[in-house]
């Protein structure tokens, strides 16, 4: 059974990789197996985690769970065309509640914390000594302050990017693009580790060519 699972894994892995050449029946088969099994897996997982794990096991102790259950039931009314419009209510609830919930979270994490972290001294007596000594500390502070400020100017939508304002916004987009460049390289390296994992499986676990 273990050998069968190993060969099946290798077969499906090569099937997905065959897409690099072009779309073909092998890829279509692997894709269908992947999609079908994962959809079934998620159905079972959500059923046991949410319906059974949360609602069925806890409805006696937590009356609020009935609200969730009722909203979930209303979603199912889509299946009845005559009253399907009721399914918009739970959707409206989710959208509204999500917006309200995230408003404060984003305000705290994306504005308050960012502003606090950006407030740095451009010159300081502490830059003369200690671990952050030297011009590097000054340049570092300047990059953070100028980059954040000009980035904010770029994302200001109420004024055309012209003149001095446009030039400041242009500096902002330079900072953003340099950041994206660094992020690109970093993320590509992490994606390579995924590829290495698959090649390690094929050459090591399956073919036994590497230890």
């Amino acid at each position: 059974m273990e050998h069968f699972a190993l060969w099946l894994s290798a077969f499906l892995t090569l099937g997905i990789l065959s897409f690099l050449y072009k779309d073909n029946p092998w890829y279509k088969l692997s894709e269908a197996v992947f999609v079908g099994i994962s959809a079934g897996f998620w159905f079972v997982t959500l059923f046991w985690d949410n319906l059974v794990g949360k609602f069925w096991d806890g409805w006696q102790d937590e009356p609020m769970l009935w609200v969730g259950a009722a909203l979930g039931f209303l979603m199912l009314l889509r299946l009845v065309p005559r009253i399907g419009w009721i399914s918009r209510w739970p959707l409206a609830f989710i959208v509204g509640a999500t917006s309200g919930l995230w408003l404060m979270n984003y305000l705290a994490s994306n504005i308050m914390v960012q502003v606090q972290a950006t407030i740095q001294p451009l010159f300081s007596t502490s830059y003369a000594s200690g671990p952050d000594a030297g011009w590097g500390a000054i340049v570092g502070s300047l990059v953070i302050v100028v980059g954040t400020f000009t980035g904010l100017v770029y994302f200001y939508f109420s004024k055309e990017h012209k003149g001095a304002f446009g030039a400041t916004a242009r500096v902002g987009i330079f900072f953003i693009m340099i950041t994206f460049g660094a992020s690109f390289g970093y993320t590509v390296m992490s994606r390579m580790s995924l590829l290495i994992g698959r090649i390690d499986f094929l050459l090591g676990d399956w073919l036994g060519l590497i230890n």
Partner: protein
Amino acid sequence: MTFHRGRTSSLASGFSARLIIVIVVIAFLAAPAMWSRADGPDIVLAGSDSALVSLAPVTSLVAADNTYDNGDALRLTWVPSIDDRLIDSKIIGYRVYRLAGTGEPEAIADLPPGSNQYLDETVLRDSVYSYYVSTLSERAEFPSNRTAVISPQREWINLDRGYLFLIALAIAGAVIYYVTVAKRGKKLFVRKIAGLEAIDDAVGRATEMGRPVLFIPGIHDMDDVQTLAALTILGRVSRTIADYESKIFMPVARSLVMTAGREVIKSSYQAAGRPDAYSDDMVNYITDEQFGYVAAVDGIMVREKPATVFLLGAFFAESLILAETGNSVGAIQIAGTARPAQLPFFIAACDFTLIGEELFAASAYLSGEPRQLGSLKGQDVGKVIAMVVIMIGVISLTFAEAWKIEFMQDILDRLSVVFSTN
């Protein structure tokens, strides 16, 4: 006899007096131990007591409700044992015991020497608890007095976030003001966003080529604001598609997004006066599994060869795979996400990219609707506040640190209080 009786009586009374004194002394000496037994647990020996070193227990142990939570935590504070201050202290740590109601003590945490607080996050709201803390040596435990019984409470309002609330109120006030202004008919300016200018052209191209438009709303659910922004843009895109009599296909990774997507497209087709052209098959659920979804969407791209691909919403490792496949089939691609790690891939592989907040601004820009425009302008007020605070903060901190100007330090302290998120 009388003498004897009298002597016996005198001896007896003297013995009784001594006995009483001895009993009183013993009782006096034993009293603290008895009192402590009545109030707290016994000393617990681990093995032989021949080498027992007595340690002072912790004092001033207090259990209090953890403020501003859902009633699921209690906070214990105490003064560590005085023996903990010694350089060669015999204390190896502290053990926290909890009694639920009138139940048996249960050890819930072992803490290192020097600890003076513990947050118990395994309690149930409205249940009753008491605690004691034992000072641990190698061979024994020396328990403190028990706390009074306490019950964790839920608080509905977090007063620690008062300034956060005020800032939110200021931004919300600005939004309401601009919405009102826009509703009165005043034209609110919003600068051009390049990616959005291309939407009509991109849909027109799909119509001319007779190929469908593929709309991918990311892989997150309706509780992600990026998905909400994507669906708002979908409203405009599907309206244009309905006007041009083109075709749209939207594979999704979440069932709720499927439902919402169908609602949005249906509304657009109705608004365009073509409700008969709408079909539920335009939006299909694939799977919740990230790479299963990617495999399916890649397959759709190479088989259907869409003329235009929209990649708007929350994307993760699949962003480059999808964008590259779309590029390989020659589709014009308009992407947008607020995930900083994925934006570089979209910028590299797509024709137009909405960067971060441009995705959220897009819906207002596209619709020109007063409420959305007012909301966008209100958010700009928030950015102005942030820029001003950064300027003031940086100047204050620089002057305070470089030239020790106290006034600047005061400003800085005030800003720290206001912008603290606790």
